[in-house]
């Protein structure tokens, strides 16, 4: 803003602070809930300030789970979620890098046809093709496995497009210079294209990691074995308390745990993330 009026300055800060509070308040409530015992969470009004049971609840959530459940903590579910998110993120990046490379740098028959085929899949997210995909995954015997959790989610039109745009901004002279230097296509891919798309890869990794981590419907469908549950499913299962009141302190602790990895990824990759999405100079 070019104007410099104190009133506007104060106003804009008030609006920003209000926005931050609005977004942060539910998280604060979750945190507070995770620090009290079960009894306190069932008495109204709900507490607004943290209690003293944080570590205790953390231990229960990680290692024991809710009472009356199957006595399993969520530690291994965090691990499952981590595997799923990482495989989806890396898988999507590798596959879309390769397909963008093919589309931009090779002249093969039906190139545009394949390009549009990839484009069309944008209209077919998992939710739309859920029955046939389930059928295929079941027939391949991939239910209740990491493969089943990740493979159907790996192909990504969005990422392919992003890399296509990135590759299109790389000047042709670089390809020509590398041809004169004697680099073959794969060498050019590895030595020039990938290093030059580094920031974009990092930005995409952040988005895709969170996408993978937050998967709900698909894991819910194909995992029946508790060993394969992800933490996002577990939160929902914890709420199915039947006759009893949900054990909010453990549920909220699990929620905090489920939020943690995406937050860590965003915080640590923030700089690269912003650079990858805004930088255009090549």
């Amino acid at each position, binding site marked *: 803003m070019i104007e410099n009026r104190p009133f506007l300055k104060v106003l804009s800060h008030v609006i920003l602070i209000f926005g931050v509070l609005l977004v942060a308040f539910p998280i604060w409530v979750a945190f507070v809930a995770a620090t009290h015992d079960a009894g306190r969470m069932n008495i109204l009004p709900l507490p607004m300030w943290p209690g003293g049971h944080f570590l205790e609840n953390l231990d229960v959530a990680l290692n024991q789970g809710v009472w009356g459940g199957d006595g399993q903590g969520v530690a291994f579910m965090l691990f499952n979620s981590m595997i799923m998110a990482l495989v989806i993120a890396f898988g999507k990046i590798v596959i879309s890098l390769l397909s963008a490379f093919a589309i931009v740098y090779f002249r093969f028959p039906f190139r545009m046809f394949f390009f549009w085929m990839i484009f069309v899949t944008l209209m077919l997210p998992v939710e739309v093709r859920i029955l046939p995909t389930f059928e295929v995954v079941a027939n391949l015997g991939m239910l209740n496995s990491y493969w089943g959790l990740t493979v159907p989610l790996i192909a990504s039109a969005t990422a392919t497009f992003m890399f296509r745009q990135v590759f299109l901004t790389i*000047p042709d*002279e*670089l390809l*020509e*210079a*590398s*041809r*004169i*230097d*004697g*680099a073959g296509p794969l*060498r050019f891919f590895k*030595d*020039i294209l990938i*290093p*030059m798309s*580094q920031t974009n890869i990092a930005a995409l990794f952040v988005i895709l990691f969170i996408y993978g981590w937050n998967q709900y419907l698909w894991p819910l469908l194909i995992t029946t074995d508790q060993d394969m549950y992800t933490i996002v499913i577990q939160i929902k299962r914890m709420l199915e308390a039947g006759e009893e009141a949900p054990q909010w302190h453990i549920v909220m602790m699990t929620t905090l745990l489920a939020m943690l990895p995406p937050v860590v990824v965003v915080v640590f990759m923030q700089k690269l993330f912003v650079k990858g999405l805004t930088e255009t100079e*090549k």
Partner: protein
Amino acid sequence: MASVTLDNIRKTYPNGYQAIHGVDVDIREGEFLVLVGPSGCGKSTLLRMIAGLEGVTEGTIRIGEREVNKLEPSQRDIAMVFQNYALYPHMSVYANMAYGLKIQGLPKDEIDQRVNAAAEILELTEEQLTRKPRQLSGGQRQRVAMGRAIVREPSVFLFDEPLSNLDAKLRVQMRLEIKRLQERLGITSIYVTHDQVEAMTLGHRLMVLNGGVVEQLGTPIELYERPASLFVAEFIGSPSMNLIPTKLGADGKTIRIADGIELSLANGGLADQAGEEVVFGVRPEHLELASGDEASLPLTATLVEHLGADTLIHGHFGDDRADLTVRLSGTHLVAAGDVLPIRITADHMHLFNPNTEKRLAL
């Protein structure tokens, strides 16, 4: 070092556009050949065909004794310097220069030695070798691009308008450096430019291209003194040659320049084409001030430009409308409206056929 031979090279694009219409040239070992012409004349296409970046529709390219039509660029033993340098932005200067050698699989110490030798020739410091290309100035990037070419120790250097991204002062300096470098290394070089000053100063020989056709191939002096066509006459030299469409006299020995002004031609003129239409050409620097009682032509000045070292006078002979440029060395205090006595020496006259646009030999 190697010679480069182009034999009836043609290029037709898939859309039917014919970019090159049959080029023949023999580039000798160690020669510096400049391809020059306006944009779109096919000079870059021709260079890229030699490099192997464009396919050849017809004809053969030989580097040394080897036909290279079907070879990959890396197998042709060439190195190329690009207009925008095409340095790998994520690699250090050193890595940029070493990349090709690394792919060739040379041992580390040989790469090291070659890169350092090239850096020394190009006066790149040790510290600059560790930088990224974007941390260098335009002139330094240009040096790195040349360094990348030098370390390959190729038989042929190809330059694709390497100076056009530099500012005027740096361009002159780099031009000298390229010339010095080529003389020192003695590597056959092919250089593409649209700048006729660059072409004249750098090349042992120039090939003037226009619309994919070779207008003339020759040394800079040949092109300047005996342009083979109207196109070359206008293209080489700055300001460009004065051209006056006119007719030969009835006996073919004289030519009418303006109303009542006739000049006699050298070597008895063109008796066999008496009365024919011709284009008469004379360079601005060859319209000289006549002294004292010499026979002279009256030129009416309309506009005067002072360049310091030279004075450019625009004007016309008598009542003729044809606008002429006169270039006199030194400063001359001439005002618009002044009439100057001008003489033209017979051996500085050029005649062209207006239909074929070719030079008429006197």
